[in-house]
């Protein structure tokens, strides 16, 4: 019988702890338990057999840490083969009459994935793939991914299991006492992602006893449309008279688990500290319970690596600003591979209160696939909002979905067959909430009823892929009202129809409606409010638009979604009540008079970002950009820099000034867009291979940029080859290398060696906690710089000598 069929009618019982029992049999601290499959097969078989005898339907093979990071390929194969053989033999020898299966156990690698660790996502997928392939080869009945405490690693394991087997896959995560994974994900977020990727069951194991997991399990039961699994510890280990004991005993454990089975748990077992006694007690305690039917929850949601965003009563705001369309500065940033620019747009929109970020980086001149992948990875490193991946290129879409740490919004599919063929296949594999535009080969219908018809067609096509209705959100397309005076009306009707006829959620790109009209913001705000009244669930919008935000907050209050009107009141306080024409901003004046320094200089010296930007803006009306740089910004930076060198200014203050100067530069850059603004030599910075500390390097970069050097930042953990390649490509005059740890100094030395060979013209400056003049000399650097200011001074010196050299010609 197939395990998934058995599960439809029965409670499925798993086994209990393995590691704790092996320790009792003499496994030493630090010894790898997986080797016992080969060295102590009788012990392993006996443990499996006792679980089957106790009534377990499934035992997990002793392969928790069996992966190619810990074992050679040959040993890994021996381990997986003997582990499955041991479980099979135990199954054959056991007495229980219950249906029995052997699960290939897949635990975490013990390494953290990038960007906060050093294991690449694709590498993690291949690591799990090797174990999965062996499990399939040697005849496992299912795959049990368990004790995962990071959502990204869980995704890598599940993806590997789905790509390399047709076996059922159960996925279980380990939650902390705060009800989250160690890296922050909530149960709802995990359910959303794992169901999207096609897990056959999801749930919880390890870390705590059954009572402490009640909240987490209840959240699973509320959101999951697949069976929920529970495999808790026997409580927490405690030291009693020099012995370690777990503090929940079999009877109490069984009762607690049984009561959760009554609430809907369908797969139950035990983890650390549990024994066959716990399993038999649990089976006894739950023998009379009728399995609770697993209901389809019909919840529309997306998730990030920390939380889920559920579509329903309260409108969802999707920030539209990460999109180069019509934005000159954004296009330039994309061409220059300036990812920081994208990140800033993301952070700023999050601070404005959006719930999801749309990410569109399509530009004909760039490699969209590479850029989209980079943007998604970098955004999800520092912003915990779910992303809406916005591209018409299926290759770019797949690259981004694969790397996305959660369940993404997919923007978009439409009623054209070609579009549906490409997008639904990806949505089926990676999961996601698909935005479906109601247009097809014949264009956008005028009438709401015809758009509804296209929506129906899209739904029936998605059904063929097994994609549920809840995972499609329709965009009935806001058309320009100035071109057709019924345009807005029909779109609003379509929103209502799709909701009432199909029961589906809707989303709109609002701002298109006002195209060609004056005061567009007003029209957008009113249209948004009307659409919300029709039941619109989400809008792709500009969160800097005051009118849109007004519509959002007032709607929530009027629709009874805002407790005590609290959100509205807080928002209203931020809305300027300006009636009189705007006077010059008061705070644009920097404090403290100083007859030698200009206002802008003082703002920079005091580290006042907004003021520096505002003053620059004003000055640009009368003064040339170059003059501002030379007469205000640079002198101010020099004042601060000298203060730093004389120890009257400390690092945080130096940075505040640098940020203020950068804000001023950003204003100037906007003005000078397109013109080349620098006469300084190219500078490449990197943290060397093996090292992931980049604070020092980032500071150096910021200060160098202040002084007008075009800095190319290669990031951290950069191979010597990559440094050489970029230095040669740019013919950079200076390379700055940073290392924090003694262990990575050899990598720095190797980088220098390769640079000397391939780019003999460049000067190399090194810095970082472990370095000093002596080290720098030993590894052949041109210069050791103890801090950012010294690096700037050196760069200026090189720059002068280079220009001098040119002048000599």
């Amino acid at each position, binding site marked *: 019988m197939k395990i998934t069929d058995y599960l439809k009618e029965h409670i499925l019982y798993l086994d209990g702890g393995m590691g704790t029992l092996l320790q009792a049999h003499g496994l030493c601290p630090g010894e790898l338990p997986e080797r016992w499959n080969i060295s102590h097969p009788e012990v392993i078989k006996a443990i499996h057999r006792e679980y089957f005898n106790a009534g377990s339907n499934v035992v997990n093979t002793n392969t928790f840490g069996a992966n190619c990071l810990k074992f050679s390929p040959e040993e890994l194969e021996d381990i997986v083969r003997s582990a499955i053989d041991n479980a099979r033999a135990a199954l054959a020898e056991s007495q229980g009459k219950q249906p029995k299966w052997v699960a290939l156990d897949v635990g975490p690698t013990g390494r953290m994935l990038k960007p906060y660790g050093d294991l690449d996502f694709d590498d993690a997928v291949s690591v799990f793939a090797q174990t999965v392939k062996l499990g399939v080869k040697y005849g496992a009945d299912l795959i049990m991914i368990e004790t995962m*405490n990071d959502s990204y690693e869980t995704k890598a394991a599940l993806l590997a299991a789905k790509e390399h087997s047709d076996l059922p896959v159960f996925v279980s995560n380990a939650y902390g006492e705060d009800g989250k994974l160690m890296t922050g994900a909530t149960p709802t977020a995990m359910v959303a992602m794992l169901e999207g990727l096609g897990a056959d069951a999801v749930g919880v194991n390890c870390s705590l006893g059954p009572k402490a997991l009640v909240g987490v399990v209840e959240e699973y039961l509320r959101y999951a449309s697949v069976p929920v699994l529970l495999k808790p510890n026997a409580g927490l280990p405690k030291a009693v008279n020099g012995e370690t004991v777990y503090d929940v005993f079999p009877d109490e454990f069984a009762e607690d688990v049984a009561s959760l089975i009554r609430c809907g748990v369908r797969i139950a077992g035990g983890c650390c500290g549990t024994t066959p006694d716990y399993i038999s007690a649990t089976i006894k305690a739950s023998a009379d319970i009728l399995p609770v039917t697993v209901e389809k929850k019909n919840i529309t949601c997306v998730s990030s690596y920390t939380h889920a965003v559920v579509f329903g009563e309260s409108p969802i705001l999707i920030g539209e600003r990460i999109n180069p369309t019509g934005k000159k500065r954004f296009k330039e940033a994309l061409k220059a591979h300036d990812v920081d620019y994208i990140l800033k747009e993301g952070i700023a929109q999050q601070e404005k209160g959006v719930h999801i970020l749309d990410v569109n980086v399509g530009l004909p001149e760039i490699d969209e696939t590479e850029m989209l992948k980079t943007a998604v990875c970098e955004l999800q490193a520092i912003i915990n909002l779910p992303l809406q991946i916005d591209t018409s290129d299926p290759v770019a879409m797949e690259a981004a979905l694969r790397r996305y740490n959660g369940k993404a919004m997919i923007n978009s599919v439409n009623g054209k067959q070609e579009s549906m063929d490409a997008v639904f296949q990806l949505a089926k594999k990676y999961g996601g909430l698909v935005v479906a535009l109601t247009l097809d080969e014949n264009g956008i219908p005028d009438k709401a009823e015809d758009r509804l018809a296209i929506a129906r067609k899209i739904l029936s096509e998605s059904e063929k892929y097994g994609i549920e209705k809840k995972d499609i959100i329709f965009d009935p397309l806001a058309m320009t009202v100035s071109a057709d005076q019924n345009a807005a009306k029909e779109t609003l009707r379509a929103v209502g129809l799709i909701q009432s006829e199909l029961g589906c959620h809707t989303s709109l790109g609002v701002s298109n409606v006002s195209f060609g009209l004056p005061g567009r913001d007003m029209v957008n705000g009113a249209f948004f409010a009307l659409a919300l009244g029709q039941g619109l669930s989400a809008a792709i919008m500009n969160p800097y638009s005051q009118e849109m935000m007004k519509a959002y907050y007032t709607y929530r209050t009027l629709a009874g979604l805002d407790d005590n009107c609290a959100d509205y009141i807080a928002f209203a306080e931020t809305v300027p009540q300006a009636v009189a024409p705007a006077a010059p901003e008061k705070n644009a004046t920097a404090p403290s008079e100083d007859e030698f320094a200009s206002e802008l200089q003082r703002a920079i010296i005091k580290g006042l970002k907004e003021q520096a930007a505002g003053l620059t803006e004003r000055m640009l009306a009368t003064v040339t950009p170059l003059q501002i740089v030379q007469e205000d910004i640079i002198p101010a930076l020099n004042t601060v820099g000298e203060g730093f060198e004389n120890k009257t200014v400390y690092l945080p*203050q130096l940075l505040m000034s640098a940020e203020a100067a950068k804000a001023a530069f950003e204003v100037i850059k906007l003005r000078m867009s397109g013109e080349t603004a620098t006469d300084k030599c190219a500078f490449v910075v990197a943290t060397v291979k093996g090292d992931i500390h980049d604070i020092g390097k980032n500071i150096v970069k910021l200060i160098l940029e202040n002084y007008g050097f075009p800095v190319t930042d290669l990031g951290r953990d950069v191979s010597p080859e990559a440094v050489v390649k970029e230095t040669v490509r740019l013919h950079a005059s200076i390379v700055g290398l940073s290392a924090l740890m003694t262990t990575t100094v050899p990598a720095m030395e190797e980088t220098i060696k390769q640079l000397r060979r391939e780019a003999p013209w460049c000067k190399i400056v090194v810095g970082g906690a472990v370095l000093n003049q002596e080290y720098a000399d030993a590894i052949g650097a041109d210069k050791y710089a103890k801090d950012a200011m010294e690096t700037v001074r050196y760069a200026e010196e090189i720059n002068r000598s280079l220009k001098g050299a040119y002048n000599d010609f």
Partner: protein
Amino acid sequence: MVNMVLTRTYSAPAFDKKEIFRYAGVRGGAPELDTLLQECLNEVESKLVYRVCYREFAVTHHDSYLDLGFIKTESMGLKKNLFCCESIVLFAATVGIEIDRLIARYATVSPTKSLLFQAIGAERIESLCDVFCREIAEEKAKLGFQTRPRFSAGYGDFPLEAQKEIFAVLDCSRKIGLTLNQSLLMSPSKSVTAIIGVGK
């Protein structure tokens, strides 16, 4: 002595602003940074966890080396630190991944804040270690033992490579979500592993 990995979770120890400024490279007070630091503290407060896992081992003293039960070492520094000790408490502590995310997030929009978060992280993990070590010292004192100052891999001649053995016996990834990279760096970065000597 308990031969098993145990875990403890703490609530936030009091913040020491002076210490944070010291880690940020500011000597003496810096009133103009106070507001900024307070913003950072408000943002960080609810995001940190304070987790420790630990395990005890007997120590055997030999002429040329120490046997700590999970590793043999010739480190003179450690030998001196563990003089007359009968056992050790080996521990790993972390304040979690969120501080790394904040440091990275602000590296883009405000390097000053990024630096302050870096300093806060350093102060937090040291405070956590202090709290744990004090607790162990009190517990051992009741049994008539004294503890020694904590000693980490990488101090003096006790090689950083010992991190591999430490992670193997403490099961850090499973117990507190702490991992070791190939270059022996820890993630989350604001984490510490150390040995506390226990003797008469």
